[in-house]
């Protein structure tokens, strides 16, 4: 048991004049408690108006991404004790418009993803009463790509996104590469072309914040470098 002070960056849309402000809460935390547990405890016992998204509390739905002590992460996956601090700062994801407290608008996230045609494109009809064949080695190429939970941590941590709100974003690059790398997709070009854009791949300056931020330990930068190679090859 330890008393932890949470400094939470709050914003109430009904009181825009007040703007963003930090509010402190004290919570009793024990071994095993996550940041989300503590936020819930604040909401349920102290201040019902504290607002954040959450659902699965097991790191799979991607709702609870926020900036914890200056790094993006899933609130439900961070152990309070592991931070070894008695004051923890929690802020909404940077770069997105804040709707309320820790809730941000995910529109840029969805928009970026929609640009890369985030679905498998096939031209030949699939075999009847059978799956398409794909060897385990071919399938293995999708590991590290399909696990993305669309939490937005990566894009929100990227300085290129801070500078350009229309930046397609590492999450969408990862998605694009998920299809480019899939042997079953028959139109990799259609996922690649939209990336050759002034808000696209070339805005990535290999900063690696996205990799550091991804709670699922995925590597958008790796996908980006593959995509850059593919696009340049395509141009020659």
């Amino acid at each position, binding site marked *: 048991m330890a008393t932890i002070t949470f400094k939470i960056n709050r914003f109430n849309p009904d009181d825009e004049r007040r703007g963003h402000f930090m509010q402190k809460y004290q919570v009793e935390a024990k071994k095993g408690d996550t940041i989300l547990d503590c936020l819930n405890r604040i909401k349920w016992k102290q201040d019902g108006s504290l607002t954040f998204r959450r659902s699965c509390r097991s790191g799979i739905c991607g709702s609870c991404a926020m900036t914890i002590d200056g790094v993006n992460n899933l609130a439900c996956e961070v152990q309070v004790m592991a931070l070894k601090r008695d004051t923890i700062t929690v802020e909404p994801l940077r770069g997105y418009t804040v709707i309320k407290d820790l809730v941000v608008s*995910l529109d840029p996230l969805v928009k970026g993803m929609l640009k890369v045609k985030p679905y498998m494109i096939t031209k030949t009809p699939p075999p009847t009463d059978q799956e398409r064949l794909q*060897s385990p080695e071919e399938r293995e190429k999708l590991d590290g790509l399909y696990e993305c939970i669309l939490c937005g941590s990566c894009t929100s941590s990227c300085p290129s996104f801070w500078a350009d709100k229309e930046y397609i974003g590492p999450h969408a690059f990862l998605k694009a590469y998920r299809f480019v790398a899939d042997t079953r997709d028959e139109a990799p070009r259609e996922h690649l072309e939209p990336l050759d854009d002034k808000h696209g791949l070339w805005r990535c300056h290999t900063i690696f914040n996205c990799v550091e931020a991804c709670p699922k330990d995925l590597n958008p930068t790796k996908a980006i470098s593959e995509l850059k190679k593919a696009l340049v090859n395509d141009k020659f």
Partner: protein
Amino acid sequence: MSTIDPETIHDVEGVPVHSVHRHDVIIVGAGLAGMRAAVEASDEFDVAVLSKVFPTRSHSGGAQGGIAASLANEEEDHWEWHMFDTVKGSDYLGDQDAIEIMVKEAPVVVREFEHYGTPFSRTPEGRIAQRKFGGHTKDFGRGGPILRACYAADRTGHALLHNLYEVCIKKEVRFYPEFYALSLIIRDNVCRGLVAWDVINGGVHVFHAKAVMFGTGGYGKVFEITSNALANTGDGLSLVLRAGLPLEDMEFVQFHPTGLYLQGILVSEAARGEGGYIINDKGERFMERYAPDKMELAPRDLVSRSIQTEINEGRGIGGEAYVYCDLRHLGEDAIMKKLPQIHELAWKFLHVDCTKEPIPIQPTAHYSMGGIPTNKDAQVLADGKERPVEGFYAAGECACVSVHGGNRLGTNSLLEASLFGRRAGKSMVRFLRGTREFPELPADAAKLAIKEIERFLSADGGERVADIREDLQGKMTDECGIFRSAEKLEAMVKDLGELEKRFEKIKIDDRSNKFNSDLLEAIELGHMLEFSELIVAGALKREESRGAHSRTDFPKRDDEKWLKHTLAWKKGDEITFDYKPVIITRFQPKERTY
């Protein structure tokens, strides 16, 4: 009945009301069931999907193990075998005509997912890989476990859910993410649409449709310890109840034996499959007392009951409500290679390194077998038996067809959600091809919903929503959990009455319209209190033990009296019951032994 006119809806005492949205099909829920239906119907019709969480945040994404289908990619398999296992697993309460459809169409559905792009794991021949799962066997139970669960590593639900979202984008399905359904508009047995709350901006919206479908998922959140998401509050069930329709078999709730202590987060069956021990405070592998043959590998309900007995009799660790799942003897290498996810979960959520320490676990509420009664075409049944409500469909965990009967087999629910979601889509298409007109909208369509919102936004009593909810969850776990008895259930009936009284006097901290999760938690609690009554009342009535429903005062299954489905309505404060026979075609009830 006059038609609603967008112009005539104004702000009503501070609650903004927005204009009417019209779509041929409106689906509530963006889980496997909802989105699979959307994919099916969107080729021909204008489909909109409403979800209280962003589509890919739906709880279907949490499923790890797999989706069952007798593809026979790895070894010989037949749909008849799959059917037998499902019927036996259901403790003979499943309707065999529906089960037959499910197991027969399963390979089609799974292969379709593959065609859409789901990244299934593969066999060396390049086919969809399959693994073993509890209760799935060869040769009508005579052979050993069978490789039947199709999987994408340990992220099957995630892979399927995201894939469906992608297909929906491709098919230009209209999403209303973060819209919360408040009430159904059903008049004269015709479903005309629904009313929903825009979570982000605040405001009541009316959705006018020719067909409405529910895929609103489960309700694990009425229990204290559950593997379910915080959003799994079973809203759809009480919306249906409030529309005067019945619910089926609500007393059947599945408890999974291994949930992380206090968190409830699922530790997959693989932990036991790979040889993990379950031990009590005295260090005993107590399963040898309950299932000397299968030990830890006995079926879910049995292991759950054994763990709970140990805890109840004071042999939990340090007298607390948990026991240990010990993996240490497997060795660090094996753990990291075969059970990396479990290692990660225990570390991330309990701060326990399972190569060095045992994992504290306790049974966790996992799945609801009952729900909205539907027929094989996913039409919701007004009388619970035959007569469908025109233009109203349901599928997935919120529905009860009933393929799971008294107890669901692992990997059958992803199958059910997608398969009956698909059937709902098809049957809506058939329905819409015949109807061209939108049904009339009653002028007072949004009245009840607005009243509900107004009441909560101005609620100024002394009770915290969270306190009532915690009491509900705690009491449901104690009195209507793994072990039930007339005594406990009667106490629960009383408790529920008190909780409802306290619920009248709640207080809300947040009075704004925009992203008011305080308000939503209050609405959700209202739903949970409402359908919990049916769980308890159904359990009290059912004087037998079958599947997941275990009565200490009636420990035997009683086919003579209870081989039937419970149907329950709520009219005012009264609960009325009716029963309908189980459909038995191929497999006659036998004693369920493993």
